[in-house]
């Protein structure tokens, strides 16, 4: 067990080192590969962070440009995804500040926001419908959550990040991350109940 964990840790560290080296060289082939590899995760994070698919698309492109320009700042003691999400997060905050002087709070409770979340699956028609309904309910619930809670939930349950990694991305203490996850899940409760009723 320990040997397996050690193997994975080593290979991840090696991958981070290779990415850091490539980013310092501004290797376009490496960036192409990274864009392909992280497209889904980054876009999902941005969609939930901003609440707007259009804005997420714009920030998606800007994030990769920033990765190219600031690649030399990537520290290979972190995983690439942690750094990537931190870059995307800072860009989003910058964008919100330019738009209106605010932090991530500026992304909260915009009634016009809708998540463009398609539902897919390979299950039966009934399961598919149920799943779609549940996804829609959760997506609707997510819209009403403060952006900080949304972010914590997405990073934890969609990206599978550890609490420490989320704290690194969001630049908040570990206790705050725990509290955001707990509060986020609690706030989603009525929406899940709505889906199962």
């Amino acid at each position, binding site marked *: 067990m320990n040997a397996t964990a050690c193997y994975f840790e080593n290979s991840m560290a090696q991958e981070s080192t290779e990415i850091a080296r490539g980013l310092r060289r*501004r290797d*376009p082939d490496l*960036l*192409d590969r990274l*864009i*392909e590899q992280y*497209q*889904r995760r*980054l*876009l*999902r994070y941005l*969609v939930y962070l901003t609440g707007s698919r259009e804005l997420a*698309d714009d920030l*998606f*492109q800007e994030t*990769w*440009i920033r990765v*190219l*320009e600031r690649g030399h700042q990537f520290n290979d003691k972190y995983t690439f995804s942690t750094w990537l999400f931190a870059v995307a997060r800072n860009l989003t905050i910058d964008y919100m500040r330019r738009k209106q002087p605010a932090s991530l709070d500026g992304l909260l409770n915009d009634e016009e926001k809708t998540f463009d*979340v*398609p*539902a*897919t*699956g390979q299950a039966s028609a009934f399961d598919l419908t149920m*799943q779609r309904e*549940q*996804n829609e*309910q*959760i*997506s609707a619930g997510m819209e009403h959550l403060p952006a900080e809670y949304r972010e914590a*939930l*997405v990073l*934890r*349950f*969609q990206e599978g990040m*550890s*609490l420490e990694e989320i704290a690194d991305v969001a630049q908040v203490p570990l206790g705050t991350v*725990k509290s955001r*996850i*707990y509060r986020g*899940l*609690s706030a*989603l*409760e009525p929406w*899940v*109940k709505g*889906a*199962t009723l």
Partner: protein
Amino acid sequence: MKNDAHERARKLIALADATTVSPSDRAWMATHMEECAACRAFADNVRETIHALRGIPIAAERSLVSTTQARVRRRALELQRQRERIWLVSVSCIAVTLGTLLSTFALWRGFAWLGERTQLNSSIWQVGFLVLCVMPALVVGIILLASDTHLSDHTGSYQG
């Protein structure tokens, strides 16, 4: 039952898969969950929420990915050219500085030699050296000033 107990249980449920729950907490949780229907329902909801969150797919469109890749490549090329230009300018600056230092030294020696040969007072050839040094800057200054004043007015009219 105290609200604190429910909150403690709910926090443990929400963070169960992210943190290590101690055996004592685990035992306390088991007892609490047996007694508390509300926390059991919360646990079910959390499970469903997490399942739903993991099941929501969002994919980037192919065009977005290819546009991003093209933009990144273009920007990489721009940055490379910019770096090359900076390198060229830096090398030129170093070459000019070295050239200036060497030529100043040579000129100084030349003026000293000339002053010695013509038996001039040292302050005279030193002033001559200074004039020669500032001459290019003076000429350029005059040209620049003239280009934006009535001196450059080719029609000859003066609008005061």
